[in-house]
Structure formats: structure tokens, C-alpha cells
């Protein structure tokens, strides 16, 4: 049995915290939650080549009410070292193993007290006409329950030529139901959002890892390569619309049949060469000059087709050199700040790309005519946020993420030092990409998980990752 208790902030969610702030909530008491788990595991190994494991666990969380508090999450796995079979004779395959598992897992990532209907404290300090007030903070949701994922995975591991070359191919299929989300609710209910089990999400993917000891002996050169393809899809969100779940910079949504956090924008077609006005695509696929939030649709997502990395390490005598390159292919980035920096001219600093703008009839330009008036682009008055697919870019990149060269200084046998190493490390030395912004690898800077999950590959004045050079001298006594 395991029991854990945690004190922390009341809300893990910015949006809930902001909502609470808006009604003058004072909350100073640390938030608390606990988990209570019972688990058992049986491992069985037969002849050191057949492996079985069965686990069963019951997890309880204080975040759920009595009726839904516990979840039962069993799993089963099996492995088989094929290369250990007597009948397996191969001059080149030195190791071969297959394994697979399936099981249920639970997730309770929600604010500690989301299930409770709550009111302000009696001494909340807010008055009207000198009289104190009491007000509701959040609605009760007694049906909150564990988000559950059914996972099936399988892999094959192989070693060739005395494991000079090893590789692993793995795949997984994860089907999550009762996904916990902070959803917007109709304001006419008296509240604007609450936590609920609303979604069904599918994740699946395949990953290939290869390790090669290219040379052994005086020069030791090792190469690690991995590549993965992951897929994510919102399968169901009940009666909710894409606008029910938002987060991040507010340009991405949940759309059934698409990855979570897909870009949900008006589709931009081109700039009219005669008028200099932007042309949009409506829901029927027709060109239109009319911008309207009702014609927002899925226009892309940040999910890459492939991601991976290549790491080479070379050691020669006391020297070592390692270089790690990472890559991503096929993802899109929505540059959310471009809607102000390349759109309607305002108090924002404009970007130089705007020079490629329409100036006179006949111009074939990327950006429409300059304007201070949002209605020129058919945006509604008071809505200068030119949110269109024009600012979606290919985010493919190849990056030399890490380069290290080191030297282990030889020490006398009687030295008091156990070792002494000098190294120079460089990170993010260069990036090959067509993305015109600062960094094609978006590192989300939101505090809460829903904001991060909802805006993968959306930049909004997001600072790029730094290029750093480090000289290190290390030793152990």
C-alpha cells in the first residue's frame, strides 16, 4: 500500500485561478491532496527466456468523490528472448527479444478541490453598500472520476554481430476515455468553466532506435539513432463545440478527428492583386472577402510526421567527442504574434516581412495593403487580431543540439585526484529550417498543463532557446 499526501497551491490551473480572481477570491490555505494505492505484482520467469508480469493496482485519490474515488488498473506483460531458444541458431543475430503488454492506467491531473461546489469565505472582505457578501465560486461536480487509458504496446529488440548493432522497434496504442479537461460552460449557468470528464483521445505511435558501435578498439565510435512517429486524435468530446476547451494563446482548439490543440482559424487564400485585400476561404471552400469567426476551421496542427535524433560519440585515448542532432519533419507552427506584427498596423512593432505588401494594382504580394483600420481586412470593429492560416509555417528542422569535446587529463598513480576532465560544450550551434521565426522548436512557457497541451507549436513572442558555450573543468577527490 502506498499513501502520499501533498500540500500545494489551490489551483494547478491558471484559468480556474483567474476565474476565481475575477470574483475576488481570497485563498491562502495550502491545497492538499492524497493518493492511496494498493498494488500487487507477480513476476514469473521461465528458463530465463520467458517472462511474465501481472500487476493489479487500486488507486484512490482525494480529488474524486466517494462514489468514484477508486480506480482499478491492471496490466499484463510478456517477454520472450527468442535468441535463447535451443533451436535458434544464427551467425549474425546475437540477441532477439519480443515483448508486449496491455493494461489500464489512470490519471487524476486536476485541481485538488474541483469536485466541490464552493462559496467564498465568510470573511472574504468584499462588501456592497457596507454589507458583507457571500458568493459561489465553482459548481459542484460529484461525477468527476479517473481518466482511464487502455494501452497496448509491443516491441522487438535485436542485436546483430555480437551486439555491434542493436535496434528496437516499438509501437503503442493508447485510448484514453473520460479525459479530464477544464471546459467552458455556458455563462447562463452562472459559471463559466469547470472540470469534467469530457473527452476521448487516441494516441498511437511507433519508434525505432538503433545503436551502432561502428568501431571498437583505440577509436571507439558509437552512433545512436532514433526516429518516432506519433499520432494523436480527439475521438469524442460529447456535445461540446471546439470552443469549449481552449488554452494557451487561444488560437487552437479541440476538434473531433484532429489532434488536440489543432489550429482553428480562418483560412487565408491570397492577397487580391487588384484591391490589395485579403481573400479568405469559407467553409464551403469558396473564396470570400468576408472574415468571420464562423468560418474558422481546422487549418493545421503542430503534430510532426517524424521526430528523432542522431548522437555520435567518438573516443580516442583521453579525448572524446560527441555530437547530438535532433530533427522534426512535417510539423506546423502557428506564429500567433504575427497577427499583430504582420497584420493591421497598430502600436505593435511591425516586422520587416511586411515590406512584401501590396502597394498598387497588379502587385502579387504576401501581405495585403497597409491599414490602421481592421475593417479594411473585413475584421470586425475592435478586433484587430488577424487570425488566419497565413501565419502557419513549416516547422521542420534539423538542429545540432549538443556538441561536446572533452579531454581526461592523465593523472599520476599517486595523485589525490581520482580524475580530472576538461570539456567544452556548445548547445544549439545551428539549426537548418525554413521557419522564418526565431525558433522552430517551440518550448511552451505556460504554467498550467492545459495551456501547454492546447497550444503545441504555437509561438507568441516566445523566446528562442539560447545558444550556449560552456567550458568545464571537473575533478573528483
Amino acid at each position, binding site marked *: 500500500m502506498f499513501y502520499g499526501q501533498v500540500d500545494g497551491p489551490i489551483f494547478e490551473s491558471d484559468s480556474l485561478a483567474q476565474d476565481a480572481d475575477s470574483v475576488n477570491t481570497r*485563498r491562502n490555505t495550502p491545497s492538499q491532496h492524497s493518493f492511496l494505492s494498493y498494488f500487487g505484482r507477480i513476476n514469473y520467469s521461465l528458463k530465463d527466456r520467458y517472462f511474465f508480469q501481472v500487476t493489479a493496482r487500486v488507486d484512490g485519490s482525494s480529488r474524486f468523490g466517494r462514489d468514484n474515488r477508486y480506480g482499478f488498473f491492471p496490466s499484463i506483460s510478456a517477454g520472450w528472448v527468442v535468441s535463447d531458444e535451443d533451436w535458434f541458431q544464427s551467425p549474425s543475430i546475437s540477441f532477439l527479444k519480443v515483448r508486449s503488454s496491455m493494461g489500464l492506467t489512470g490519471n487524476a491531473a486536476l485541481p485538488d478541490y474541483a469536485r466541490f461546489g464552493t462559496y467564498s469565505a465568510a470573511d472574504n472582505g468584499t*462588501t*456592497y453598500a*457596507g454589507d*458583507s457578501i457571500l458568493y*459561489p465560486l465553482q459548481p459542484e461536480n460529484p461525477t468527476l472520476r479517473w481518466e482511464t487509458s487502455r494501452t497496448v504496446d509491443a516491441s522487438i529488440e535485436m542485436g546483430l554481430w555480437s551486439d555491434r548493432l542493436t535496434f528496437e522497434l516499438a509501437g503503442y496504442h493508447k485510448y484514453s476515455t473520460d479525459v479530464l479537461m477544464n471546459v467552458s*460552460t455556458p455563462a447562463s*449557468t*452562472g459559471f463559466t468553466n469547470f472540470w469534467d470528464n469530457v473527452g476521448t483521445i487516441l494516441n498511437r505511435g511507433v519508434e525505432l532506435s538503433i545503436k551502432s558501435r561502428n568501431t571498437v578498439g583505440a577509436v571507439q565510435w558509437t552512433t545512436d539513432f532514433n526516429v518516432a512517429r506519433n499520432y494523436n486524435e480527439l475521438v469524442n468530446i460529447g456535445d461540446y463545440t471546439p470552443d469549449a476547451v481552449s488554452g494557451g494563446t487561444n488560437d487552437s482548439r479541440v476538434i473531433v478527428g484532429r489532434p488536440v490543440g489543432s489550429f482553428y482559424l480562418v483560412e487565408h487564400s491570397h492577397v487580391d492583386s487588384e484591391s490589395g485585400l485579403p481573400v479568405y476561404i469559407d467553409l464551403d471552400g469558396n473564396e470570400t472577402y468576408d472574415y468571420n469567426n464562423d468560418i474558422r476551421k481546422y487549418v493545421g496542427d503542430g503534430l510532426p510526421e517524424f521526430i528523432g535524433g542522431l548522437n555520435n560519440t567518438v573516443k580516442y585515448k583521453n579525448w572524446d567527442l560527441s555530437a547530438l542532432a535532433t530533427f522534426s519533419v512535417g510539423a506546423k507552427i502557428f506564429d500567433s504574434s504575427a497577427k499583430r506584427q504582420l497584420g493591421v498596423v497598430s502600436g505593435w512593432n511591425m516586422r520587416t516581412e511586411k515590406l512584401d505588401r501590396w502597394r498598387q494594382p497588379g502587385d502579387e504580394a504576401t501581405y495585403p495593403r497597409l491599414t490602421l483600420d481592421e475593417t479594411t481586412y473585413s475584421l470586425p470593429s*475592435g478586433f484587430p487580431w488577424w487570425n488566419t492560416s497565413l501565419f502557419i509555417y513549416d516547422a521542420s528542422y534539423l538542429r545540432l543540439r549538443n556538441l561536446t569535446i572533452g579531454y581526461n587529463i592523465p593523472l599520476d598513480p599517486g595523485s589525490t585526484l581520482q580524475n580530472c576532465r576538461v570539456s567544452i560544450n556548445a548547445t544549439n550551434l545551428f539549426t537548418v529550417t525554413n521557419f522564418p521565426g526565431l525558433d522552430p522548436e517551440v518550448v511552451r512557457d505556460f504554467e498550467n498543463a492545459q495551456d501547454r497541451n492546447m497550444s503545441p507549436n504555437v509561438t507568441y513572442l516566445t523566446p528562442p532557446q539560447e545558444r550556449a558555450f560552456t567550458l568545464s573543468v571537473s575533478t573528483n577527490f
Partner: protein
Amino acid sequence: MNIKTIFIAAGFALGLASCDRLLEFEPGDVILAEDAIQSPEDLQRLLVSNYDILANLYGGRVQIVNELRGPNFGIPDNSLDFTAVYNRETTFFTGINGGIYTDFYYAIYRSNVVIDNFELVTELTENDRTRLEAEARFIRALCHWGAVKMYAKPYGYTAANDHPGVPLRTAPSQDPLPRASVGEVYTQVLLDLEYAANNLPETNGPYATKSAAQAYLAQIHFLMEDFQEAADYSASVINSGFYVLDDDLDRFETDIINPETIFGIVSQPNDFRSSWFRDNLRSDNTSNPQLAFSEDFAFFMSLSGAADGRSVWYTSGSRALINRFNEKEYFNIPLAHLTLMHLIRAESLGELNQNLNVAIQDINAIRARAYGAGNNELPEGATNDEIIEAARDEFRKETACEGFWVDQLLRRGASGEAITIRGAPWDCPGMFLQFSNSETTVQGFELNEEGGCL
């Protein structure tokens, strides 16, 4: 099963049960909903939170938005939200309309909670219960009516008033609701206010009274063009003896409840509730305030010349700056007041073509204050059309910045008059604010058509 096994199993079960207590955590310095309402004081404090929301709504925000929909205000300086309302192009992303809508329903929800939870408080007297329900229904009515006027085409737009209004919520519920018809909303609003009028006390500090409910019944029947009821309810308030017309033209007073105020918002030295007026309208706060009167309104005001005491409420120029609230850091805001009652009664009697002498007295009481006694009076033999015209002129002037005029134009448009507002038909789609974006989060909610007024 031997005795040892039974003991082990029982011990394990007991262990599970006792461990369950380790999973009990409740929030610390907030109150659980089931514990929140236990005494009459709790209900009263919940009720006062509704007045707090009304103060947030009517501390200038609703008034300004309604003036921006109408012809009295000019183009805003640079506020995006004000510009969206002024150009009648609000969307569900525009903040100000979403915020107002949300606040209306915060108050409606809380009112419903008050009404729904009397049985939780055993020591509640029958008098208190009745009064609390009357106040809660008063606020619920104000908010439903306030919302339906802003987010739906007006009463009378269709003969049966079956055009879409706003969600009608008469019980606390988290279930999404579609828009009720305008007729259904008005019916419920009248029911609530009639209950309030029959059960509210005649005096109630800064809170709702019998006269306040009657004053709103007069306004609502007036917009429904039930002129007899409008005249009768306004007469009841005028004749109640609780209110007198102020000697001067300033109803927005600091630290004083103006004697005309039937119901209003209270500001206090440490609790300014009039900041929207101060921050956006006062011409002495900044040389370029966010909002100013329109040329049309300035021209209309100029027709009566400097003899009209209300002419000091604006300054002529490229922007007709608003002076009505100058030099006031905070003030109380009348929402229903005696001037309104006199003008509603006058126009209603004019429409009914009865008791015209009373209508003339109503108008002349207002004019005497504006021009000085005996000046610019409506003659005794004025026709009903002249009375209606005079009542409308005085209404537009007296309620400048109070957000009432657009409702009158929409009423007249719905009754067949050819009304245009800043060059667009009175019923162009964008006149009616778009709903909050949160209302679109559930399939099936009917949004308003946007734009179409430029």
C-alpha cells in the same frame, strides 16, 4: 474457511475502510456549497452579492454600452471594445458584451439559489422569506430584462414575440439552455416584478422596494407599449410620496442618495461603483476622454440653447465632450428615478390621449427645473402628439448617458416607425450584441447575426 482466514479477511476490510479517511480533504478557507447557506444572514449576504453584481453592471458599463448602440455617443477614442459596440460589430470574442452577459447570469444564478434554498434555513421567518424571495425575483427580473434588451431584438419585433430572446433561468442548474422567446422572457420578468411589487417593503435601505419594482414595471410596460399599465405604475410611484423631483439637475450625487432615486447603485468613499462614468466620460479627467456625445446629440441639445440648464452637460467642439459627471471622483447612480416616471407617464398618457393635463404637468415639472419656472412650458391645450414629442425630447436629454434612449428607438422601430440609428436601420443585426463565447461551447445555441450596420 477457518477462523484465521476470517480474521485476516476482516482485518483487511477494516483496514481498507479506515484508510479511506486518508482521502478526505476539503478546501480550507472557502465554504463548501452544502455548508454555505445555514442562516438567514447567509441568505441575506448571498442576496447582497447580487446587488454587488448589479453595481458592477450598472456602475456605467451597461449604460455606456447602450449609449454606444444608440445615437447619443460619438465614435470612441481608441477602445477596441467600445469601437466594436459603436460600429455594431460585436463578436463572441469581444470582451465587453461577453462580460456583461456573464454578469447578468451570475446574478440570475445567485437569485435562483436564494429562492431555491429557503428550506435549508429553519429559523427563517415568513416575513424574511417573502422579502428575500421578492428581492431575488426583483434582481432576476432586472437581469433577464437587461439581457433581453441588449442581446435580442426588441419586444414587438414579431407579432407573437416568438423571436429568440435569451436563456430563461428560473432555477439553479448547470444544464445548458437554448434561448427562450422574447415573449417568454417578458412574461417571466413581469411575473417576477409583480411578485416583487406585491411583497417588497416600502423602504429597504439602498435595496429594492415596492416602488422600485413598480418603477421597473412602468418601464417594461412602456417598452411593451402597454401604455395604460405604464401610466398606472408610474403614477403609483409618483404618488407614493417617497420621492420628490430634485431642485437641481444633478441626480448623480456623492454621499447623498438623490431624492428622486427609486432604485440605484451606491458608491462609498472606499468603494467606488461609478468608475466607468468617471474613467470614460468625464471631460475634466483628460483632454481626450474615451467617449463623447455625438454631433447629432450635440446638435439636438443645441436647439434649446443656453437657456436650458442641461446645456452645460456638454462642450461644443470637434468632440462634444461630456461634462455631466465632472469634478466627481465617485457618486451614487440612480437607475430608476422620478424624472423617468414623469416622462413615461407623460408619453403614455399622450399615447392613450387621456389625462393630458397630467401629462403636461409632468413635462412642465421637468422643464421648469431645466429652464426655470414658467419658461418654455408646454401650453395647457397641447395635443397628445405635442405631448409625446415633448416627452421624447425631455426623455432624451434627461437620460443622456443613462443608456435608455436606444430602447425607446427600438420600441418605436418595432411598432412601425421608420427609425434609423446612425445611418442604419434600427433592426440591423449588429444592433444586438453577440453572446458570450462561453455560450457557444455547447452545440445548438443560436447566436446573433453579426455586423450589417455599417
